[in-house]
């Protein structure tokens, strides 16, 4: 293949695509990716879909299989509206972290776009999914599709047996806690295999069949209860404090039936599956954008893409990495595509043409010329926060003209804290890295105590960082959902992380049902 790529023949001409062209283009791109960038990818499965199907995929969080829930219907209506009004174009592609890696291509794309998308998703994202340590450790690409299949049919079966409304109620409450349903530090257990799940189901069914109401009438042994209450080991087994609220409720809620626990588990597993994606947005998109930009240029240099197609590709590329300044009306935050690509190209530059400043800041990579290894290593070992902390260079800070704005609630002014100067580089880099730390920026809520033998009062704690409290209305609504899953009173104490003082406490008994 590598030899063949040397010949100066075009991969395609014209804007129409067909399967032979797609296949030929993929082969050429993959060959050059392996040869030049040393990418290592899952096998690829490309699926051609229509815009309608793309909308469907959008609304079910981008997964090809998903259980039914009204909120997906709501998102669908919203996306559909935006699309029809022309307010928003659809993504050209959607890629799923699975093995084989599934890439959706839109049928409306031109051939040039399909080539771009192939390089972006089928190679860039794919490589990242397969090699980044977060994905390797925390998600199970091989098992996710069969797990979703199981989840979908399990929930459909529950709806048949227990009624739509009851299943919906559990899902509503569970969805509200999705963000608190991940293990941030502890490694989640591997997805159980189909056979294990089958065994579990059989056991449940057996228990249901052999249920005997007589057992319920036996008086509880007083001795045992007392022992338990006094036994500190028992409380210890709850493993408090627990950051994964869904896990805690699934294992310990006093009122849930086994099927409800299984549903919580399903939502928890899906939340966990998406957790690495949220931590690696800049890196993931940056990697894919860097790969497509580099590969497309290489193909063009070798005469395998025509000038017209290249122009179209570049136009789309520059749309994707467009970054307006903060005072531009189009500004809506930092574009992860742009930041990621710029940082990776910057690494390439530092490695090949370093300045004195770069040698000072990055003695390990400056001038070594091994940007491929550095990038491969960064893609494998970092998440957004650590990547920025390590590789954001002063040159890039100057290019982007970053500045840090302090915003204290009791001040009538914003204060410019740092700008792109010698004193500011470190601070800007730290602040930007911190802003990508998902763990530090989302509310930190944990189960701290539970009175299992008394009134079963569940106590949660919100660690308040920098005085940022929770939004009142959504907090109360979410607490109601926790109460629904827990069955008894739930209270949430806001505790200042630095001083350890309780700021205020909110309990479900204060909230109207």
């Amino acid at each position, binding site marked *: 293949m590598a030899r063949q790529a040397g010949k100066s023949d075009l991969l395609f001409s014209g804007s129409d695509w067909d399967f032979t062209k797609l296949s030929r283009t993929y082969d050429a791109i993959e060959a050059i990716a392996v040869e030049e960038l040393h990418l290592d990818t899952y096998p690829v499965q490309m699926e051609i879909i229509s815009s309608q199907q793309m909308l469907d995929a959008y609304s*079910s969080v981008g997964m090809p299989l998903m259980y039914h829930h009204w909120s*997906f219907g709501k998102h669908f209506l919203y996306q559909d509206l935006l699309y029809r009004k022309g307010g928003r174009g659809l993504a050209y592609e959607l890629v799923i972290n699975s093995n084989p890696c599934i890439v959706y291509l839109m049928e409306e794309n031109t051939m040039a776009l399909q080539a771009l998308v192939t390089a972006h998703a089928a190679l860039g994202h794919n490589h990242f999914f397969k090699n980044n340590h977060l994905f390797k450790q925390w998600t199970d690409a091989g098992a996710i599709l069969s797990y979703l299949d199981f989840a979908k049919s399990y929930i459909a079966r529950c709806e048949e047996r227990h009624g739509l409304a009851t299943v919906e109620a559990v899902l509503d409450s569970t969805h509200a806690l999705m963000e608190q349903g991940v293990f941030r530090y502890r490694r989640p257990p591997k997805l159980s295999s189909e056979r294990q799940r089958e065994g579990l189901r059989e056991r449940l069914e057996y228990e249901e069949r052999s249920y005997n109401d007589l057992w319920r009438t036996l008086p509880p042994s007083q001795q045992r209860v007392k022992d338990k209450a006094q036994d500190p080991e028992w409380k210890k087994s709850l493993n408090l404090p627990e950051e994964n609220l869904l896990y805690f409720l699934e294992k310990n809620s006093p009122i849930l039936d086994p099927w409800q626990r299984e549903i919580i588990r399903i939502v928890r597993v899906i939340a966990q599956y998406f957790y690495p994606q949220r931590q690696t947005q800049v890196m993931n998109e940056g990697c894919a954008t860097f790969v497509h930009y580099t590969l497309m240029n290489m193909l063009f240099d070798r005469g395998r893409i025509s000038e017209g197609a290249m122009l179209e590709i570049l136009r789309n590329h520059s749309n994707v990495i467009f970054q307006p*300044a903060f005072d531009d009306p189009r500004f809506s935050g930092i574009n992860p595509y742009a930041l990621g690509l710029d940082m990776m190209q910057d690494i390439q530059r530092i490695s090949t043409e370093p300045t004195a400043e770069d040698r000072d800041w990055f003695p390990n990579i400056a001038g070594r010329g091994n940007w491929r290894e550095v990038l491969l290593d960064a893609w494998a070992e970092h998440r957004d926060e650590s990547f920025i902390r390590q590789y954001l260079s002063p040159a890039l800070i100057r290019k982007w003209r970053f500045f840090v*704005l302090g915003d204290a609630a009791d001040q009538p002014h914003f204060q410019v804290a740092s700008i792109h100067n010698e004193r500011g580089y470190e601070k800007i880099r730290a602040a930007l890295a911190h802003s990508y730390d998902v763990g530090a920026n989302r509310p930190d809520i944990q189960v701290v105590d539970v009175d299992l033998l008394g009134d079963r009062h569940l106590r949660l704690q919100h660690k308040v960082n920098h005085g940022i409290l*929770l939004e009142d209305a959504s907090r109360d609504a*979410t607490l109601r959902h926790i109460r629904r899953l827990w069955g008894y009173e739930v209270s949430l104490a806001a505790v200042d992380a630095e001083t350890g003082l309780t700021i205020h406490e909110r309990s479900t008994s204060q909230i109207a049902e």
Partner: protein
Amino acid sequence: MPIFIDRRLNPKDKSLGNRQRFVRRAREELKRSIRDQIRIGRIADVDAEHAVPMPERGTGEPAFNNARNGGRRQHILPGNRHFSPGDLIPKPGQGVGAGASSPGNTASEDDFRFVLSREEVLDLFFEDLELPDMVKLNLKEILAFKPRRAGFAATGSPTNINVGRTMRNSHGRRIALRRPKQEELDAILEEIAMLELVPSSAAAHQRIAALRQELDRLERRRRRIAFVDPVDIRFNRFDPQPVPNANAVMFCLMDVSGSMGEREKDLAKRFFVLLHLFLKRRYDRIEIVFIRHTHEAQEVDEETFFNCTQSGGTIVSTALEEMHRIIRQRYPPSEWNIYAAQASDGDNSVTDSERCIALLDGKLMRLCQYFAYVEIIDKREAHIFGTTENGTSLWRAYSAIDLKWSNFQMSRIATPADIYPVFRQLFGKQPAVLKRA
């Protein structure tokens, strides 16, 4: 080499189930907004898609979120032009600062309008009318078409080939292009066979060679000119034709004197909408005439009909006279099916009620397919009037008509659920049975 899967032909509407769940969940609010739209919209518009705002209650998806303001935070922004450290920038009024905080994505996602299909709208509309399921189905059904033969076409499905036509075309073409017939070939073959039987001579050989050449030529020609060519083929053409339908005109008569309040008008409107739906199912073209009356009647447009009140007494017969005048002028009963629906609170002077009887009995009932009268009464009166034949003067007067004419229907309604029984007769009978008296 990647695996390719073409999913374009997979069933669409994968999220239809999600949509149904969503609509069911928001049912109460959607119903209210549909009802509001029906109240302000036109009668004929009910039977269509409607855009509705996203319901506020029941569709929120709460989660723990950081408050928008309060506390100490830092924003990292690109594009500094002239700030230096220590600069103070006044905060813009309440809320987000300099586009710094994350864009309020959730707010906009809960605040948009979406379109309900006609089916969904009708479902919501029917909900508290308590229609029998059979009736609902019938009303939702789109007008049926029947295929009718309409000449011939050059394209179509193989099952519709018209063999006669096709063969006639083929025959003509074969003649015109001089396709060699089977008989000519047979004759040559026979001659060759004969010549081969007799001992050979040079002349015979020559003759056979010439004949074979001729045979060859003819056969080639036959192959070139097909027996039946695609251009010959004709198909039967069918036109979808609506099942026999005619024009109908629907008269809406309503008392708009001060005693008709919001509630009464709302009930009356639903009554008119339902009649319109019934008629629409049966007729191709429906015109609606609105006649309002106090002590005098006039024809008005829909807007005025439902929204304006007038002061004045109540003389019902004026409306009936107006209706009669319009029928004579514009809707000859030989061409139009005439339906009338009258809504009133029953107030009328005794002398005028007699005049109404005379008008209906003498003229109008003969022209109308169906005349429905609803008297809108207070909920508290419902159980008093529910059974008795006593009532307002108009009710007593109309009772006499009701006995005499089978196509007259009258009813008292206090809630939406009372509306449907008025139509029971109309729906139960087929148009043929509803003959003009």
